[in-house]
């Protein structure tokens, strides 16, 4: 194949991404309803922070999830674990629930499971976004503190 004609897909994608972000900004600007997005540089930063939060959110250990882990009130428990605490007739009750009752409510179960799954996914993305923003805030705070300390050192030196 002629090396001169060879197309580097990552270059094409960089161009597509630039155009896609410009189009996205136009839509997000929303005829002035989010005036901050008139600033292309600001929009780029916002988009980058949010995208990095969303990308790989499945793979990240999310601090917020870890902090609230074990808190029953904040844990989605969509799956009905079919059990019984009765020692003798328990297995019979489980059998009745699983074989006779569950098939009748299957459609509702599947419908709600699907939505619970989506909700769990949205929660995960939101946790990831909060984490990304918290990191940004912490980083800015550290820079600000360092700048203040620097300024006060310079001020006392001058005095």
């Amino acid at each position: 194949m002629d090396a001169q004609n060879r197309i580097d897909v990552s270059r094409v994608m960089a161009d597509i991404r630039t155009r896609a972000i410009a189009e996205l900004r136009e839509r997000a600007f929303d005829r002035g309803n989010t005036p901050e997005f008139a600033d292309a540089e600001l929009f780029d930063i916002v988009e980058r922070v949010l995208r990095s939060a969303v990308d790989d959110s499945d793979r990240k250990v999310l601090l917020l999830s870890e902090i609230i882990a074990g808190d029953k009130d904040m844990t989605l428990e969509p799956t009905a674990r079919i059990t019984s605490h009765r020692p003798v007739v328990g297995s019979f009750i489980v059998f009745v629930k699983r074989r006779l009752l569950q098939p009748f409510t299957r459609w509702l179960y599947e419908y709600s499971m699907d939505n619970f799954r989506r909700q769990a996914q949205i929660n995960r993305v939101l946790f990831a976004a909060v984490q990304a923003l918290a990191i940004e805030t912490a980083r800015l705070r550290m820079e600000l503190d360092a700048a203040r300390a620097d300024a006060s050192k310079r001020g006392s030196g001058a005095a």
Partner: protein
Amino acid sequence: MKLACVVQRYGLDVVGGSESHCRSIAERLAVNHDVTVLTSCAADYLSWKNTYPPGASVVGRVRVLRFPVDRPRDTSHFAELNNIVAGGRATADDEAAWFLENGPQVPALLEYLRAHGQEYDRILFWTYRYYPSYFGVPLVRDRAVLVPTAEEDPVVWLRSLAEFFTLPRGYVFLTPEEAELVRGRASGPLPPSCVIGTGLENPDVVAGFSRPNPSGPPKGGHHVLPNGPFVLYLGRVDPNKGCETLLRYFQEFLDRGGTQLKLVLAGPVFMPIPSHPSIVSLGFVDEQTRAQLLDAAVALVVPSPYESLCIALLEGWNHSLPALVNGRCRVLKGQVLRANGGLFYHNVTEFVTALRDLVDQPELSRQIGRQGREYVDQHYRWPTVMQTLETFLAG
């Protein structure tokens, strides 16, 4: 070498990614080695109902030993376990129960491995997620070679897999991304491995290996190709394959001033498809129609979020067709970047922009398709694949 291939189902009429991969490899290994396939009597992967007779038989060039399924899958219990696993809340007991219920439960196969495993030089296991591999690998770990076919789905995050992934003597991966995924999940260093992908026949060459039984899968008949330009989706039309998102994105493409482009879905349908003049669903298509579609399409679109290797993508490239793939799937994005054979998207705006480019710039499209074909020629022809595998197994 004396080799065994362990797989959940096996047969000419068994259609499935890992099963087909196992059969293709087993038959080619059998040219130079003594190969026995160890499998269940099941043909259906949902119920694992015994269909084939137990015992020895010959399929193509390969000796097959089938073991009866002890208990068919309890689908409602499995669905319950699946939901727990998908929610990331599985306990160790839930995980063990999941692997047991996922089946096919073939304790006699495990007994055979215990009694006769040492007679084989290497035992290749396909797909970590099924009972024969999950419970079989630990019994013969000193000679076990796992072909995990791992995807980034919730199952791969099960805690018990961290140790399991350190057990085999070696790994055969389908892509570098799959290798990275398993490496990241294992609790210790991985044993030696190779990446083989799969082999494709040059469209003009007639293969000498067994083909799926013509009386097995349903026939699609001869379909008339749609008029005008179209993008093609090949495979099961299923929400799990990203098809819901694809349909939404494609309609958005049309709404944002898309051309007269059509979306053609070629594969069995497992979800409602909106009635739209630009969306054409053909259902299952035969091989001839499939080849015609691949030759006539503008691009192949692959929206799947989870893949260990996308054979449809390679098939598209085999026909010099550029691809548009879901960039959130590492395997797809990695393949496209390595091949320079397609574009990818992370959201609807990127989808629309990339598709527009492929449609409006035919020279760009053609060149990207040619690059895909060149990549297949270099890496995915059977002689190349088998040479890599043979060298690895001999090591």
